[in-house]
């Protein structure tokens, strides 16, 4: 037996979010979705920068949310008739040089060919705009070259990644980018240019995942990360939306965060969005939407069959057995139920079958 015989194209329950954006869908949890959407919509139309904390336990969907709201079509829909945002997903830096690592991740994520054509399409007086957005003559010159169609993009990208300035010295680039200040200045000036009068992009959205890892950095890296966040908000004071994903754990509780964030950063936090453990209603809403999403099922099942191949009382029993736990644990349990049903040739997952294999599904608690 295979999964198609359960009227599904593939197993919808994942333990870790997919990297392929086509496989990232949103199911259930309308309140969280709305809160994030509102934040993004607000930033699309209003020119100020905000810092938002997404807070929840392991496996509560924060990473998934960051990937979902990075999808081009989702951002286009939120922008409606406005200019679309430019969104980048970042992993929390693991090296002893965290600012450089974040900077490199940002440069890695940017398609400079596309950016060049968009910038040149929107600005006919680029130098004037540069003069407004930064006083730093080196950064100004780097950005001018970056968006000059006559210049070889490979050479400038090499320079951005820490390559020698010698090849560019005749064009006014007289030193290497080396300090954290350089990286921050370049990033914030680039962001300011891209969102200037919301012409190329309406807002830059940065998601930093696993921000709780700030608690396992050494003291100098903690200080550098704080400076990075503070400088981003200060220097790109318009049109930047920064989401920090934080997992609440034995390593890091909500009260502990204050010890790692400097006052200057804490005071910039505008909202805390909580990814709570799902209750029974939320979970059933999630399951119904997930199982019947076009990604997994061409024609949705409705009425008493809306959770097919699961019977509703099985779902109630799993919720009762697992209790107050994370969405990832529920995904794991339903995934196992589904895989077992395929293995045992069961087309309908009813309470008798669940009781039969319950110990394999729930396991040690």
């Amino acid at each position, binding site marked *: 037996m295979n999964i198609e015989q359960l009227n599904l194209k593939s197993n919808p329950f994942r333990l870790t979010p997919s990297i392929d954006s086509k496989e990232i869908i949103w199911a259930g949890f309308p309140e969280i979705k709305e809160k994030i959407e509102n934040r993004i919509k607000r930033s699309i139309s209003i020119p100020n920068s905000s810092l938002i904390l997404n807070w929840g336990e392991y496996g509560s969907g924060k990473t998934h949310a960051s990937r979902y709201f990075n999808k081009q079509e989702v951002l286009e829909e939120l922008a409606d008739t406005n200019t679309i945002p430019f969104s980048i997903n970042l992993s929390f830096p693991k090296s002893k040089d965290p600012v450089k690592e974040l900077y490199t991740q940002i440069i890695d994520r940017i398609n400079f060919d596309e950016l060049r054509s968009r910038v040149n399409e929107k600005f006919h007086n680029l130098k004037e705009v540069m003069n407004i957005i930064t006083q730093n003559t080196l950064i100004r010159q780097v950005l001018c070259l970056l968006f000059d169609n006559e210049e070889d993009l490979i050479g400038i990208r090499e320079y951005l990644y820490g390559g020698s300035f010698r090849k560019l010295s005749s064009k006014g680039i007289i030193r290497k980018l080396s300090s954290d200040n350089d990286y921050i200045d370049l990033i914030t000036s680039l962001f300011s240019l891209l969102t200037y009068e919301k012409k190329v992009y309406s807002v830059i959205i940065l998601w930093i995942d696993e921000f709780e890892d700030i608690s396992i950095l050494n003291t100098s890296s903690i200080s550098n990360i704080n400076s990075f966040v503070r400088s981003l908000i200060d220097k790109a004071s318009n049109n930047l939306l920064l989401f920090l994903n934080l997992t609440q754990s*034995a390593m890091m509780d909500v009260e502990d965060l204050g010890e790692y964030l400097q006052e200057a950063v804490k005071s910039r936090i505008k909202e805390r969005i909580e990814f709570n453990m799902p209750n029974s209603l939320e979970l059933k809403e999630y399951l119904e939407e997930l199982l019947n999403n076009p990604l997994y099922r061409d024609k949705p099942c409705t009425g008493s069959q809306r959770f097919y191949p699961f019977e509703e009382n099985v779902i109630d029993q799993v919720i009762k057995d697992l209790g107050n736990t994370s969405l990832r644990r529920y995904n794991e349990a339903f995934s196992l139920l589904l895989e077992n049903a395929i293995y045992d040739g069961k087309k309908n997952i009813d309470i008798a079958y669940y009781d039969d294999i319950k110990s394999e599904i729930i396991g040690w608690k």
Partner: protein
Amino acid sequence: MRLPIVLDTCTILNLLRIDEDEFLYKKLIKLKINICQSVFDEANRNVKTKTFSENQRKYISSHTPQLAPFIVRCDEQFEKKYKACIQEFCAYKKENGEFYSTLISLYLCRQKHCRLYFYTDDYPAKCVFDSFFNYQQIGVIGDTIDLLVFLYWSNPDFDQRKLEKYLQNLLSEFATPFKEFHNQFIEKKGRWITRNIKNKILKENLDKIEHGLEGLNFEKIGEGMAYFKNDGKSYKEIKTFLDSYLDINFSGYMVSKIKDTVSSLKRHPIYKMPC
């Protein structure tokens, strides 16, 4: 009176990896420190093999050779007799740094007529030799966290802010591999379960490790890991993965102890004589 201190390889390396401008090193060598030849050799050898940043490697390797004057050699007859005694008492066959540190601890204790401190971050070794220290009334076995606290209260220029800084930097060293293990484990767990869909005990033990990692419950992590290690034939891939993180439970234990110490410092100050 300053009591003798015996240092194990991991404590020397852990202290030096978080040191800046010889702040800790200078305080350490002012104490009555003692090391055995194996520890001296291990420290100089491990700096090349363990995972240090380039700066740490440079710093450590410029300091470990300077510990040569602190090497202690036991009387030959004593060594012969008590090596066998420790091996039998502790059912321990390896002749490594921890073993010889225990031997010189006994020797120094009797020579100097005083109890002493042996600092090691090797948790399994601590468990093995604890009973011998207790039985022979040699002194106490502590770790780098205990040593940092001692350096703090015994030095007027070592303030609480600095202690918290060094503890955070030490935490970072242990927590980074712990977090990496956690992330990799979660990534692989689903695949291991799907491949063994009907194996209830496999899932049960993977769950134990996951719950243990999330709640810093080392007993649970240890139980789960032991199951796969004891049945390496059936779980070759899982065992290989777990073997690549041999010290993970100890890293977690150190993280937890540092967090508890930092948290206690806020509520219960460690008494320090006013200058």
